[in-house]
């Protein structure tokens, strides 16, 4: 009698396959992913803080969350553009993408600092 495959086993198997696939990604993409995770976590902590103490300086809360989310979004765009497997951006040199990333981040943070109050 073969043991029926439980969902727990399936989850484990899925998780393992994902993990092994992920380790194949190039390092620079992993750095970008780490950066995105960092930004999202910071945003989540800010939201939790607001949930606890109330949203009194609402503009500050918004600017904080927006900076995290914005920079995460820009990092994702950078990852898309830098990824060599992405056929769409084959001709775009990665340094150019990085320069765009830096510029957009600087503009974003100017706006954030203004809105921070």
């Amino acid at each position: 009698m073969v043991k029926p495959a439980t969902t727990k086993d399936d989850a484990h198997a899925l998780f393992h396959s994902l993990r092994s696939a992920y380790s194949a990604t190039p390092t620079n993409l992993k750095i970008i992913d780490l950066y995105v995770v960092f930004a999202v976590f910071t945003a989540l902590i800010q939201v939790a803080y607001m949930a606890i103490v109330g949203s009194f300086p609402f503009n500050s809360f918004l600017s904080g969350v927006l900076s995290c989310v914005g920079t995460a979004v820009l990092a994702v765009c950078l990852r898309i553009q830098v990824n060599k497997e992405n056929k769409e951006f084959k001709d775009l040199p990665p340094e150019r993408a990085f320069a765009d990333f830096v510029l957009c981040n600087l503009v974003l943070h100017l706006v954030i600092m203004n809105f921070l109050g």
Partner: protein
Amino acid sequence: MRYMIILSVADLIVKSNIANSQLFSSYLTSMLSKQHSGRRLFTVALTLSAGALTISRFRISSTADQIRKILFRSQFIEFDQLIEFGMAIKVGIVVVLLAVASICEAVAIFHPISESHLSAALELFSPVAGSFSSLEEAYEALRTFEVLGIEKKPDIKDDTCNSVVDTLSSMSSNSRDLYHALQVNGLLKCKTSKDALTGITSRLKDAVKDATSLLDYYHSIGGLLLIKDQSSEVDVLLKNADGILRSIKALSQSDGRWRYSANNPESSTYAAGLAFETLSGVIQLAASTIDENLIGTLKKDIVKLFDSIEKYDDGSYYFDDKHIDSSGHQGPLSATAAVVRGLTTFASTSESLNIPEDKILGLARFFLGIGVPGNSKDLYYQIDSLSHLENNRVSVPLILSIPATVLSLTSKDKFKVKVNTVLGSIAPPLSVKLMQVFSSGSKDGSVLKQELHFDPKEAIHMLDALPEGVDIGEYVFAFEIVLSDPEHKRKFATGGRTKVPVHVTGVVKVDDAKVAVLEGDIVESEKKLDLPGKNDLALSANHLQKLHLSFLLTTPFGKPFKPHQALLKLRHETGVEHIFVVENSGRHFETTLDFLGLVDKFFYLSGQYDIELTVGDAVMENSFLQPLGSIELDLPKAPEKATQPPPQAVNPYLRYGPKAEIAHIFRAPEKRPPQEVSFAFLGLVLVPFLAFLVGLLRLGVNLKNFPTSTIPAAFAILFHSGIAAVLLLYVLFWLKLDLFTTLKTLGLIGIFLMFVGHRTLSHLASASAKLKSA
């Protein structure tokens, strides 16, 4: 009639509020018996009630309106309430006044010129800086002084004479200036040379020949006439008198007015007056006798002018110019003055001018009715016209004046009448008869024919005893003047029957006054009152009882008397007042306050009420406003929907006093979280950053791709430092900088950064491309 309104209104206002009304009523009576013109009293009465009101002209448009205006201006709050409750009284007064108005139109008193005119003249004509501003004004002042008999000061005389001599000798003066200078010269008699006068005569004669407008004729003819009076040696006679008369007459109009010149269509009565003066001057200066027919037509023109005369209710006649003409003369006073001058000078040149005597008397009354005018020109017109009327050849008006129109029965005053000419001189021998006495409200008066006794020392006609049946009240006495010498009948204008309003005052007896508290119909407690003395009642009643007040009022002759005000006022301790009218039947006055019906009206307020009784009238010498004491009222509790008592008037001095201080309430600051929580989360936020760094290390980041050769390395370093600088700038921006400086600096750093970054990244790109190809 105006007089009675004034009295009743002033009395109403005074009596309603002043506690010591007796003092004020006696003050008012003494004021009335002094020698004042009606206008002056009107001013005084209004001042008493509502502050200063200056009246320089005289007519009141409608009496009812005026009463209403006075009432609204009254500052006494009680008085307004009084009017609400005294509706019966108000209606009564109006009815009385209307009745009086319907009886007679000419019920007014005119006084001849008096001391007040002298003092006004001295005040109004005081020259500025020692001399008059123009010769015209100088003439007006000097003429007024001459008529009133005031001495001229010698220094003014010298100054004015200098001005006169200058004008007469100067070649540039036109006929107008010469005319005014000659007028002043006639009064001051300055030293002028015969040659100067001869020279002026020839200039004026030329001016007459060349004259086209009425004013040219007026000034030149007037000048020639004045020279004729001032110097007998100069020849001023006119050769072509007929022609001049005809050319002046050509300017006349069919309605009696005159035009100023042939091409100017505007005409006025003032011009007509000037024309007649000029015409009479021409007649006097004529070298040869003038055609009688021409003079006849001129007389007809004067009579035609008198068709446009207008009349006031009190018997004064006047001329009014409806259109303001170019010389700026306007108004009835200047027009009437001009016509009077023209008429009297024309009448002095020829006999038999057919003007009815009542019109001349009416004109005199018009000028006297002004009282004392407020400005110098009006005073001049008034005095000058009256002096012309004083001894004119048509008919001299005689004025019947009453020094005192209020008689007191208690002090047994005798009624006095004066008859004078307009300037106050003695009249010819005559007798005054009292023909009729009308009491207020009746059209028929008892017909007497009582002759007044003449006192030659004081030149006053006195009524020895008042006619029978003249009790206290308001009356109209009708007098007639009978001249002793029948010859004088043609010369003097007496005006038929003259009606004057008279007030007879006296002490009203208050008898048998008592206050009672009734239970049903049974008298519970009754107290006698001493009116108008002091009383101090202390009653008490509840809402089921009634308060009854009664007294008798009798006149000195024993007849029943109904005063203007018979009011009972109850005033609560909180200030709420209620006023009740005391009704009468004949002599007996009583009122019953049924508290059961008044509970709602009293706003269910129980407590102590002060009682006050007011009985007052213009002819009652002992009017009183007496507090009678107090009554303790016990009323039931107010039901849910009862009306609230009206809020009491705020003390006006408190209204503008300092108000309560307002403390600004600042916006409550938002609740901030405690500091520990904030710091905890600050640490918590840094945790992902640390995790990021740790993760980077775990991933094995390295700086292998960092360029090693010098220049690219320098650029790379500059690139990173540029980014760091921008981030530092942002931190500074958050901390203290403003957006503008930030943007400026950001722009500079950004340019630098773009250049540096471009170099670095292109170097890196080329390095990686080399690596790829290799």
